[in-house]
C-alpha cells in the first residue's frame, strides 16, 4: 500500500480541527486515514472523460425563497442555550485572531 498521507499531514489537519492527538493515536489515525484514502482512490481508476463535474448528485438548481422577513427566536430563549451570556451576547473564551 502506498503512503497516502503522512503523520505531519495528520498533525496539521488535527491542528486545524483543534484536536489534540497523542503520539500513539497519531500512528493509528495515519494508518486509518491512509486506508480510507486508499479505498477512495478506487474512483481514480474510473474513466471519467466526457463526464461533467457536478457539485451535487441532485438535478436541482435555483432553489430560492422570496426576500421576506419571518419571525426570529426570542433572544432570552436563545441565550439560555449558551453556556455563558453577557449583555445580550454569547460569552466565549477570548478569541485570538480576526473575523473572516
Amino acid at each position: 500500500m502506498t503512503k497516502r498521507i503522512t503523520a505531519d499531514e495528520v498533525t496539521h489537519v488535527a491542528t486545524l480541527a483543534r484536536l489534540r492527538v497523542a503520539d500513539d493515536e497519531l500512528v493509528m489515525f495515519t494508518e486509518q486515514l491512509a486506508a480510507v484514502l486508499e479505498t477512495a482512490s478506487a474512483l481514480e481508476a474510473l474513466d471519467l472523460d466526457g463526464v461533467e463535474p457536478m457539485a451535487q448528485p441532485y438535478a436541482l438548481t435555483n432553489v430560492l425563497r422570496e426576500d421576506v422577513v419571518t419571525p426570529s427566536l426570542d433572544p432570552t430563549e436563545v441565550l439560555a442555550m449558551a453556556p455563558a451570556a453577557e449583555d445580550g451576547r454569547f460569552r466565549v473564551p477570548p478569541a485570538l485572531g480576526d473575523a473572516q
Partner: protein
Amino acid sequence: MSELSDGWEMVIGLEVHVELATKSKLFCGCSNSFGDQPNTNVCPTCLGLPGSLPVVNAQAVQYAMTLGRAIGCTVSPSVFARKNYFYPDMPKDYQTTQYDQPTNEDGSLELPDGTVIGIERAHIEEDTGKSTHLGGGGRIHDATATLVDYNRAGVPLVEVVTRPELTSADEARAYVAELRDILIATGVSDARMEEGSMRVDANVSVRPTGDAELRTRCEIKNINSLRSLGRAINYEARRHVALYEAGEAPSQETRHWDEDGGRSTSGRSKEDADDYRYFACPDLPPLAPTPAELAAIDEAMPVLPGRRRSALASAAGVSMAETSLAVERGLDTFALDAIAAGGQGISVMKHVDQNLADGVGVMTAESFAALVALEADGALSATQVKTVLYEMVASGGQPADIAASMGFEAMDNSELESLLDQLIADNPDEWARFAEGDSKVQGFFVGQIMKATQGKADGKIVNQLMSAKAKA
C-alpha cells in the same frame, strides 16, 4: 502619485465586502437590519443549530448578479462552498461562500480619470457575527473574553476582489468611491462604510519600480473610511520598504489598522486556502442564471456613474474628472438639460460644483440656463448672479425678473470707467504699484469699486478695465 522613496512602487489589491440591501438574510428569513438589539435577528439556521437548512434569498442573488453586470463581469452558474474555520463569529464553524465557481468573474471598473482596474471576481457569501473583545482595553491579544452578537451572521454579502493592479493610495480611494457610487446607483447596497455595510481589506506589497514579480503581501483589515484606507496603504507600503532596505522582509500575515495610532499591528499569520478545506455545500443546489434573467438585469440597469460622467463631459466640454462632483450630487441630468437649453457648459459646471451643493430646489434647468446667459453677457456681476441663483433655488422664477426686482441692473462700462479714474486720481501711489505689476493692490481697487457700487459692478470687467488702463 507614489508616497514611497525612489526606486519602489506599490502593488495593491482590494477586497471589498458589500452588504446587500435585502430585507432578510441570505439563507433564512431573519431581518437584515443594522443596529438592532443584539441576538434579536437570529434563528436555528443562522445560529447553525442541528437540523436547520439554508434556502437562498432570491433577491440577494438578483443583487449579486446586478452588481456583477454593472462591473462588467461574466455571470456564470455558481456553487456555494463551505469555508471551514473555528472562530466564534460563525456558529456553524464554517462560512458559506463561493470558491471555485463564483457567480461573477472577470470584470473591470473605470475610474473617473480613465484608469481601468481589473476585477477578478465578485462572489456571494454570508457575513459573520460581530465580536466584542472584553478587557485589555479592547485589544484582541489582551482580551479576557469575547462577546458575540449573531444579528449580522448570515447577512448577504458580495465580496468584490480586484486584481493586484492598483498603484497608489489615491487610486485605491478612487476605486472604492467609484464602486460605492455604482452600488448606490444600482440600489444593490447602501454602501455605508461607517456602518460597515461596505468594508475594505487592502492587500499591500511593494517591489522595485518596474519589476514584474509580486512580493510578499500583507492584508490590512479594520479600515473604516476612505481616509483610513489611504493612510493604511501608505503606512503599510512604507513599512515594507523599510524592512527591505534594512535587509529584512515582511512576512505574509493579516494586520489590523489602528486609526488612532496611525499604524498597523500584526494579526494572525495568514492561513493557506488549503487550510480552509473548502468543499461544495451539500445543502445548497447550484445557481444557474438563465439568459432571459441576465437580459432582464441588463435591461433594468440604470445609467452608471461612468457613463453619466462621459455624457456630461462631452456636453459641457470639460474632462471626465471635472464632472465627478455633479454626478455624485445627482445633478448631471439637470446640468445636461441646462446645457441643452443654451447654458454655456463651463459656466453651468462652475455653478453646479460651487453653488449648488444643496441641490437645485425648485429652479428649472431652463431658467438656470437663462441666468448663465445673463452672466455670460455681463448683464449681472458674479455676486449678483449668486444672489439671483439662490433666490431661484428657493422660490423659482425667471432670472431677469428676480434681478429687476432686486434692483440689479448692469452697470455701464463707462460708468465704471469714470469711477476707476476717480479712484486712480485719489490713490496715485497704489495705482503706480499696480501699474508696475504689483497684483496685490488689485484687490484694493476692485474692493473700492464694489463698495461704491454696492456690489453691482462686475469684478471681471473691473479687472479688464484696470489692465487696459495700466497698459495704456
